[in-house]
């Protein structure tokens, strides 16, 4: 059961990378997460939002839609969506070290999200956009 929900829309400008990860982790902090759990959420959100900016809206500025749902069992579900270029081959994109940008991109964003979250799901349609869903159960400091 969802006990609290939060939605935000931001421009795909790189200054918003720190703003969005701080905001989402602040919302999740009502579950009294450990320092490590908060860092895991910050890091995964940073990866997903950065991907919207550098890949989804490569040569333009669009909107990034973020939703966070908190469930009564401590599950946090975060969706991060863009209406950008989409991913041609999701399986390939999720492979470690795969990147279409090069330069100093390591191709490890999806690997970071997968290992820092309990589960992630990726839905994408070419020229329509991409939705990333991040699942993380917060055990919390109290337990």
């Amino acid at each position, binding site marked *: 059961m969802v006990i609290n929900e939060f939605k935000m829309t931001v421009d795909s400008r790189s*200054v918003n990378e720190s703003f969005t990860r701080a905001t989402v982790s602040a919302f999740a902090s009502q579950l009294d997460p450990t320092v490590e759990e908060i*860092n895991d959420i910050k*890091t995964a959100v*940073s990866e997903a939002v950065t991907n919207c900016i550098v890949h989804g809206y490569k040569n333009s500025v669009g909107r990034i839609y973020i939703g966070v749902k908190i469930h009564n069992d401590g599950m946090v579900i975060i969706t991060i969506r863009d209406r950008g270029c989409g991913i041609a081959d999701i399986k390939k994109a999720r492979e470690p070290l795969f990147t279409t940008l090069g330069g*100093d991109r390591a191709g490890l964003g999806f690997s970071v999200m997968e290992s*820092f979250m309990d589960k992630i799901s990726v839905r994408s349609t070419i020229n329509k956009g991409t939705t990333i869903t991040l699942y993380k159960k917060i055990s919390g400091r109290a337990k």
Partner: protein
Amino acid sequence: MSVKLEFNDETLLCKLNGEIDHHTTLPIRLDIDERIESCRPQTVVLDFSNVTFMDSSGIGLVMGRYKVLNELGGTLEVTGLSDNSYKVMRLAGLDRIANIKKGGSKNGNQ
């Protein structure tokens, strides 16, 4: 995010400060590469003691400097990693290309 560069004894020490993400790494990386180019250090030390956050952009920063140094014949060291930064670095297998050390208890819990 900022970086302080100190060149001493053939070693370029890069003291990183703040949060490392895609937005903040570009200017830092240009600063560091420019100094590597002009000083030709034998060793470059990336000091993460004052880094409060990093995502995969930090991996890119380390891997990119490794490539630059590899061409010029220098070695790379990474020091002062917090638990979170260490977790990200290890995932990338960066311990195989650079000498990677965790920070002391002072910053081990960011």
